[in-house]
C-alpha cells in the first residue's frame, strides 16, 4: 500500500486514481484515517512520480485538513496500515486539529553578495577559504534572522530548510494571512538592490506535521 496522507476519521478519499492507477481508499480508525492506494510493486520515486504524488496531495489538501505522508512510504498490507494508524492516531488527530486552516509557504531569499555556496572568489589559502565560508554562513544567519522577524506577525511556526541558492524558510501561516506575508516579503525584497526573495505555496503542511507523529508502534 502506498500511503498518501493522514486525515480526519470522517474524511473520504477523493474520487481519483493514484500513481499506480488504482482508486484511492480510506483506511479508518476511531480518530483518524489514512488515504492509501493499492500498490503491489515498488515505486521508482522518480521526479515524475514525486510530482504526480505532490499534485494528488495538493488536491487533497484543498478539500480537507490533512497531514501529508513522506513520499514514498509503503506498507505491505491494510492491517499494517491500520496498526500504524491505531498506534499514532491520538497524536495525528491532535496535530490535524492544530493545523486546520493553516498552510505552509516557503520563502527563498538571496542577497546579491551571497555566493551560491562558499564564495566564488578563489581561495588563496585554507584560512581564506574558511574565512569566506564563515562570512557566507554569517550572512545566511543574518538573512534567516531578518526574515524570521519580518514574518513573525503571520507565521505561527518557522523551520529553516537546507540552503539552496540562498536561505529557505518554511512558514506555517493561516490561509487568510498568506497575502499579507507575500506583500511583506515583496516589500522587504524591494528595500535592497540585488536582493531576491520568492514565496512559494501555499503547500500542504509538509514541514509541520510535528515530531510526535513518529511515535513507534
Amino acid at each position, binding site marked *: 500500500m502506498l500511503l498518501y496522507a493522514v486525515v480526519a476519521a470522517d474524511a473520504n478519499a477523493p474520487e481519483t486514481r493514484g500513481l499506480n492507477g488504482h482508486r484511492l481508499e480510506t483506511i479508518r480508525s476511531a480518530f483518524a484515517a489514512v488515504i492509501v492506494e493499492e500498490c503491489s510493486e515498488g515505486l521508482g520515486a522518480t521526479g515524475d512520480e514525486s510530482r504526480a504524488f505532490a499534485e494528488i496531495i495538493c488536491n487533497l489538501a484543498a478539500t480537507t485538513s490533512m497531514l501529508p505522508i513522506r513520499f514514498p512510504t509503503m506498507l505491505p498490507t491494510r492491517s499494517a496500515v491500520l496498526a500504524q494508524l491505531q498506534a499514532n492516531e491520538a497524536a495525528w488527530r491532535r496535530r490535524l486539529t492544530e493545523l486546520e486552516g493553516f498552510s505552509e509557504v516557503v520563502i527563498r531569499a538571496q542577497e546579491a553578495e551571497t555566493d551560491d555556496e562558499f564564495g566564488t572568489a578563489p581561495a588563496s589559502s585554507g584560512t581564506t577559504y574558511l574565512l569566506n565560508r564563515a562570512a557566507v554562513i554569517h550572512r545566511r544567519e543574518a538573512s534567516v534572522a531578518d526574515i524570521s522577524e519580518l514574518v513573525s506577525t503571520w507565521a505561527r511556526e518557522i523551520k*529553516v530548510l537546507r540552503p539552496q541558492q540562498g536561505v529557505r524558510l*518554511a512558514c506555517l501561516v493561516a490561509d487568510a494571512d498568506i497575502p499579507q506575508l507575500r506583500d511583506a516579503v515583496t516589500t522587504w525584497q524591494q528595500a535592497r538592490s540585488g536582493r531576491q526573495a520568492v514565496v512559494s505555496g501555499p503547500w500542504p503542511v509538509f514541514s509541520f506535521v510535528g515530531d510526535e507523529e513518529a511515535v*513507534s508502534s
Partner: protein
Amino acid sequence: MSDAPEKWSDTQVALVDLIDRVIGGGVVITGEVVLGVAGVDLVYLGLQLVLAPAHEVEQSVALGGRSA
C-alpha cells in the same frame, strides 16, 4: 564574475520547493520487523520508513539530529 545572483523563476522555484518538501517533509512512519526461521524469532529490527535526499541524511547524521 557578477555579484548579481541568477534571476529566479517563480514557477521553477515553486516546483523545486514542492518536490523537495514531498520527499523531505511529511509524516514519518515507524515500524518493526522480526526476522525468523521456521517459526523461531531470531532478529528484531526497529525501522523508520523514510526516503530522504542523501545530502539531508548525511547532514543530519553529521549534526547528530534528524532531518527537517
